[in-house]
């Protein structure tokens, strides 16, 4: 309990009759970077607002730093928060934005100055201190918003899609900066996004949410390589995973003529199960070119559509009557109608129970 920075226990939140969060439990360690990832409307912001104390929860408890803060005011929870719209106070200068909360809390002037100076140095916004937010670019505004959380000298940072309003290049820059900030400060961060790349690059652990539940909580590698259910497998990765429905029998996956012996596959349960199952294969894990010979399973397919994307090429084919995407090198010379030999490595594939959609 004590080494958990933030603990959400059995949290339920209703908006009127609508249950948005259902018995949600989440333990976050000291200094951990957690990303809440999910499609729109899955309850990410709602969960974050509950942790912040901006929403009154219907049931459950929230602990921060070993204290039950379920009914504490947001300001007393030891958190700082950064919003998508920046939410800067528009009529105040950057300095005013950073110091207003501290002034209100009665922090001594010298201390305020020290903290503002430190935050603006870390975020490199010193030259902007006397400007109004309207005179700042989007990236600069978001830096100031992060600064406002920084000066609070808190242990937990909450971010609600902080980069969504920025253009792609700026987003990539600021993403790296947030990562650097985390390495430098080493405090707990909870970060909401619906951008997979942000999630994969920033997170120590990712929580994939759907309909108010956490579908899987794990490191980016676990989420990517060993998705616990079909939803997560489908959600993570772009282009998304290929799925083929079939039967699993005695360690061999079969669908019509297609048979894939699952040698080397790491089953979730010690007993290899049998029955209706779905195999999931990521387009980037399909082997092509000279290396096909090394792959345990080899198939001959026909190229349907070719989508060149610069660094790589996405090739659409058909396997066992299902659409099947293959990611190839950007230099690959393939054309519509041509035959293609592909290799599949069962150890890198995922198997799901057809009914429960859970990983086998």
């Amino acid at each position, binding site marked *: 309990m004590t080494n958990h920075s933030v603990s959400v226990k059995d949290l339920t939140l209703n908006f009127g009759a609508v249950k948005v969060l259902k018995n949600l439990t989440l333990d976050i360690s000291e200094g951990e970077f957690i990303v809440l990832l999910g499609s729109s409307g899955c309850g990410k912001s709602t969960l974050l*607002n509950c942790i*912040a*104390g*901006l929403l009154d929860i219907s049931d459950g408890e929230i602990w921060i730093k070993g204290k039950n803060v379920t009914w504490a*005011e*947001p*300001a*007393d929870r030891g*958190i*700082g*928060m950064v*919003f*998508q*719209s*920046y*939410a*800067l*106070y*528009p*009529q*105040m200068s950057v300095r005013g934005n950073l110091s*207003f*909360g501290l002034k*209100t*809390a009665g922090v001594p002037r010298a201390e305020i100055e020290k903290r503002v100076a430190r935050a603006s140095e870390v975020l490199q916004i010193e*030259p*902007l201190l006397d*400007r*109004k937010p*309207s*005179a*700042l*670019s989007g*990236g*600069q505004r978001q830096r100031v*918003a992060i600064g*406002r*959380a920084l000066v*609070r000298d808190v242990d937990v940072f909450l971010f609600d899609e902080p980069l969504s309003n920025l253009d792609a290049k700026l987003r990539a820059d600021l993403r790296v900066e947030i990562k650097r900030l985390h390495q430098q400060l080493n405090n707990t961060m909870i970060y909401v996004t619906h951008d997979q790349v942000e999630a994969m690059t920033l997170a120590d652990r990712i929580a994939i949410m759907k309909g108010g539940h956490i579908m899987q909580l794990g490191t980016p590698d676990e989420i990517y390589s060993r998705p616990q259910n079909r939803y997560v497998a489908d959600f993570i990765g772009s282009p998304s995973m290929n799925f083929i429905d079939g039967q699993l029998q005695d360690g061999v996956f079969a669908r019509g003529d297609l048979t894939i012996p699952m040698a080397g596959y790491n089953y979730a349960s010690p007993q290899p199960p049998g029955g209706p199952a779905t195999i999931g294969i990521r387009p980037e894990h399909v082997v092509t070119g000279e290396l096909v010979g090394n792959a345990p399973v080899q198939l001959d397919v026909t190229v349907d559509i070719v989508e060149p994307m610069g660094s790589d090429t996405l090739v659409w084919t058909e396997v066992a009557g299902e659409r099947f995407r293959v990611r190839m090198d950007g230099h690959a010379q393939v054309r519509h109608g041509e035959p293609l030999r592909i290799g599949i490595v069962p150890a890198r594939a995922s198997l799901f129970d057809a009914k429960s959609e859970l990983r086998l």
Partner: protein
Amino acid sequence: MAQARKRRLRLSAIIGTVPMMIVAIGVYVIGIAFTVFWSFTDSKLFPNSTLVGFKQYHRLWQDDRWLVAVQNIWIFGILLMVFALAFGFLLAVFMDQEIRQEDLLRSIYLYPFAMSLIVTGLVWQWMLDPNFGIEHTVRSLGWANFQFSPLVDPNTAIYGLVVAGIWQGSGVTMAILLAGLRGIDAEIWKAARIDGIPIWRVYIFIVIPMMRGSIGTAFVLIAVGVVRVYDLVVAMTGGGPGISTNMPAVYVIDMITKSYNVGQGMAAATIMLLPVIAVIALIGLGRIVSTRRKNAAILRAEATA
């Protein structure tokens, strides 16, 4: 590119507003010009064109009725401004708390504004009448010494007008300010809560400064209402008791229709025009300054970005 588009937009806007501009020039400007012109003549019952210089103005500022009217409009204007804005704002804050029945309440608050000032005036005249208004009601409930009949005393009659004016003006002010309050991003409120800023401080230091636009609109609306206040006076006091509740607009009309002194009435009307011009000039200046500042800020942001 942007420049050209702006210009074309402006051209079509001009074409669209030409009829309106003709009307404005034809009616308003010519009307104003005649008003000013006649104020320099010795027009009596009918306008004439015998110029007498500033004589009408000289006489105007020696007329007790006019002096009372000017003093009254200051009292009326300042009190109305302060209280209508304050009440309107408090009502708007109240309405912003996600209360139920919001639409019903809003209609109730806006109702006075929909009513003619004559009706407002008559209603308040009755309410303030010692024989059957508030005073009578309270007395009949047992407080035999209760006194509240401002309209019968020349020293307090003007405050009776102020009360009616506030009642009439708070609803619109509320509606305008409520729109302004609703325009404030919910995340600003969240950020302030995280910062631990008490609600009243959020209103004073963050929300009200963000609402400058709607507060300005409400201000202008009230100011215009004050300058031309006429019907309320006519309905409630007729300018009395004595000359105690005269207002400039009442004075102008009385000069023309009762004293048959068009010249002096026009002089008074011309004086009334001055504060209106001043307000418009101030607003225009404020706009220019703020767009300049904003443009400069954007340029600076672009330079550093």
